[in-house]
């Protein structure tokens, strides 16, 4: 693991990504403490451009809300949606993939057909339909994103488990009387971890994008300020006040870029095949 970290640290892109992400996380965690006022409060004249008036450095939006405060509070929402929905997606996808790969046969068939059922529906369309059924609260948005993003996890884990379960140490574990659950949890999954971590880091990025798109369409939680909502609200004034979409857009771009850089760095650091080449 120390070796993997060293390799990660050698990758400049990945380190830059990590720094950006840490900054975003810092803003999300500490920002609301320093700027406790509600992002929904009107503070000044509407449509103030950035750096025009003291006190509102990034300007105000169509109803005079502070863009900077919105950005800070939105960071918290976007990151939380990204992280929590990824964790939920892993909680669904990893067990399904592990069971399918380990037991094979009809268990595999049943679980994989179930997975394919979700994969064949375009994920964004499914998300819209689900949110139309549920109430648009943060809880359901996270759930919806998790539901549309677990199938690739299940596929990946199944593939890994399928190849790992024929290893001799798994056979040795079967012979030594360990139960199937013990074998899956202690022998197989720890060895499948590296690709799962890589996929998860990229899924956080996709989840942030998905939440933004949903908010843009007005399917977000109306009580929560998020980056996607800010872009969505500003789209009607794109030509007169472009910075209202541009600024939160940059925030999304940087965060997603950071996560992708980290994901790629992790992939290089944890993928043993690439590792061997560099040694």
């Amino acid at each position, binding site marked *: 693991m120390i070796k993997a970290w060293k390799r990660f640290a050698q990758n400049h892109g990945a380190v830059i990504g990590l720094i950006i992400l840490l900054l975003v996380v810092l803003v999300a965690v500490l920002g609301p403490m320093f700027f406790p006022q509600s992002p929904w409060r009107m503070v000044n004249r509407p449509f103030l451009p950035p750096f025009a008036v003291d006190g509102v450095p990034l300007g105000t939006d169509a109803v005079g809300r502070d863009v900077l405060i919105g950005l800070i509070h939105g960071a918290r929402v976007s990151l939380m949606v990204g992280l929590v929905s990824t964790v939920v997606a892993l909680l669904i996808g990893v067990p399904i993939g592990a069971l399918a790969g380990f037991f094979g046969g009809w268990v595999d068939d049943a679980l994989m057909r179930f997975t394919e059922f979700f994969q064949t529906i375009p994920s964004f369309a499914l998300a819209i339909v689900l949110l139309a059924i549920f109430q648009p609260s943060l809880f359901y948005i996270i759930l919806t994103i998790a539901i549309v993003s677990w199938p690739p996890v299940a596929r990946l884990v199944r593939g890994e488990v399928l190849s790992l379960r024929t290893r001799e*140490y798994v056979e*040795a574990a079967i012979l030594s009387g360990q139960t199937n659950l013990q074998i899956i949890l202690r022998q197989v999954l720890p060895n499948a971890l590296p690709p799962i971590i890589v996929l998860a880091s990229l899924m956080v990025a996709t989840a942030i994008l998905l939440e933004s798109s949903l908010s843009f369409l007005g399917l977000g939680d109306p009580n929560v300020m998020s980056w996607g909502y800010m872009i969505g609200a500003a789209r009607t004034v794109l030509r007169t006040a472009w910075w209202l979409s541009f600024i939160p857009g940059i925030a999304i771009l940087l965060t997603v870029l950071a996560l992708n850089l980290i994901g790629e760095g992790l992939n290089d650091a944890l993928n043993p095949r690439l590792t061997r080449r560099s040694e």
Partner: protein
Amino acid sequence: MSLLQIKDLAIALPKGADRPHAVEQIDFDLAPGEILCIVGESGSGKSMSANAVMGLLPEGVRPVKGEIVFDGTDILGQTEDQMRAVRGRDIGMIFQEPLSALNPLMRVGAQIAEVFEAHGLLSPGERQKRALELLREVQLPDPEKAIRAYPFQLSGGQRQRVMIAMALALEPRILIADEPTTALDVTTQAQILKLIEDLRQKRGMAVIFITHDFGVVADIADRVIVMEKGLIVEQGSVDDVLLRSKHPYTQKLVRAIPGIVAGEKHDFSEAPVILKVDGLTKVFTTGGGFFSKPRVVRALDDVSFDLYTGETIGIVGESGSGKSTCGRALVRLLEPDSGTVEMAGVDMAKLRGADLRANRRKIQMIFQDPFSSLNPRARVGRILSEGQIAYGTPRREALARARELLSLVGLDASAVDRFPHEFSGGQRQRIGIARALALDPDIIIADEAVSALDVSIQAQVLDLLADLKERLNLSMLFITHDLRVAAQVCDRIMVMQHGKVVEIGPADRVLMAPEHPYTRSLLDAVPGKEYEEALKKVVGQ
């Protein structure tokens, strides 16, 4: 006049490797038409020297000193473009694993034709014609059909013939063969060795043959180079090196080869039967759809034998003979289709769930590959204690036992806190043995347990197994393709072919006076027999 001259070659390894140079002070000549064998254990630098000749060194590894003179020019000074013209045309190479060296998605004929294409030779029609001639020359059965086959449709030996055909396509003056027969069965190995010998004579081609097997060396070499840790420790004619070796390392290697007669044999037929196998059958059915007939392979066909307490039975046969399937069916890693496996009055083949778990601890397995048989993310202590904990031993006791087991197999007890990758192949195999012993089994199934190890390590592990067997009163099934190893450790030998037991009897009888023609062909194919007799004479003097 020598064809290839290597003068004082040194190849540097990247920083952080276990030694600064992969090879050093390499000096040898190769005469036209000569077969030069380079022998050594894994990590001795034997492949590295050959790769340097081809200009195919891995990234980060480069020659730092010396020269390789081929045909009057120093290869090391050549550009990549110049080297590309040399490769294939002047120097051909064949590899150990013919499956991974061939493109799985290309027909055999196209792959051979590609060699001509890469050097811009011949027209497409002529290339196909030459490919067919080459396949005929390497004696591939039914070359007209084989030229349209994909690599996976051929057997290991046939694939190696295709590789040789590709290497010979441009009539190189030197053929480098890197462990070309290691992955093959003995009978196939004998055929390939004969083919290389024939081609050498027909074409006057020089061969650099890299191997770890002294039997092969004895059969094929004109001259031998012995390497240890990147240095040439001995070189000379085959008789000088093998029969009158001067360097202690060579002597150690020569001594470590198990002879085809060796080992104390006991007759256990008076002892109680501990495992009674009767009519064990396993059929694999693959493929088969609406329009095609499924392929049916009888991997185990009515296999019956008794294992007596304290006895070692060697199960020998070539790959695909069903010997591994047999071991795995006994412990139920595979479900046998029919037959009984009676152990202490219980039929192992019919048990389910908890009963199976409870009885399985009495019969444990040692696996072939010391690298994939240990969980890379578990410490040795956990590997050795997991099984006991699964059967209800408290963790503390299990860990104490793990330490005991480690000293039993000749490792330091402090190894419990280390990860498998910190150990060498031989040490890992010891850990694998300790794991098999952790549950106090009565029967051990060793599936090719020493095949992946170097000869000197092999000898140590075999000694350890013999010692443990004695001390713990174990009965053992020893699955191997290596008749020498079987001769050394087994009391009785069971020969399998196509899933059937063709012969079973006391080891001496089976090896000295085989009854079945298949056993005889296996014995004939073992390399280095003449040499062994010669060695006996020398030792006898």
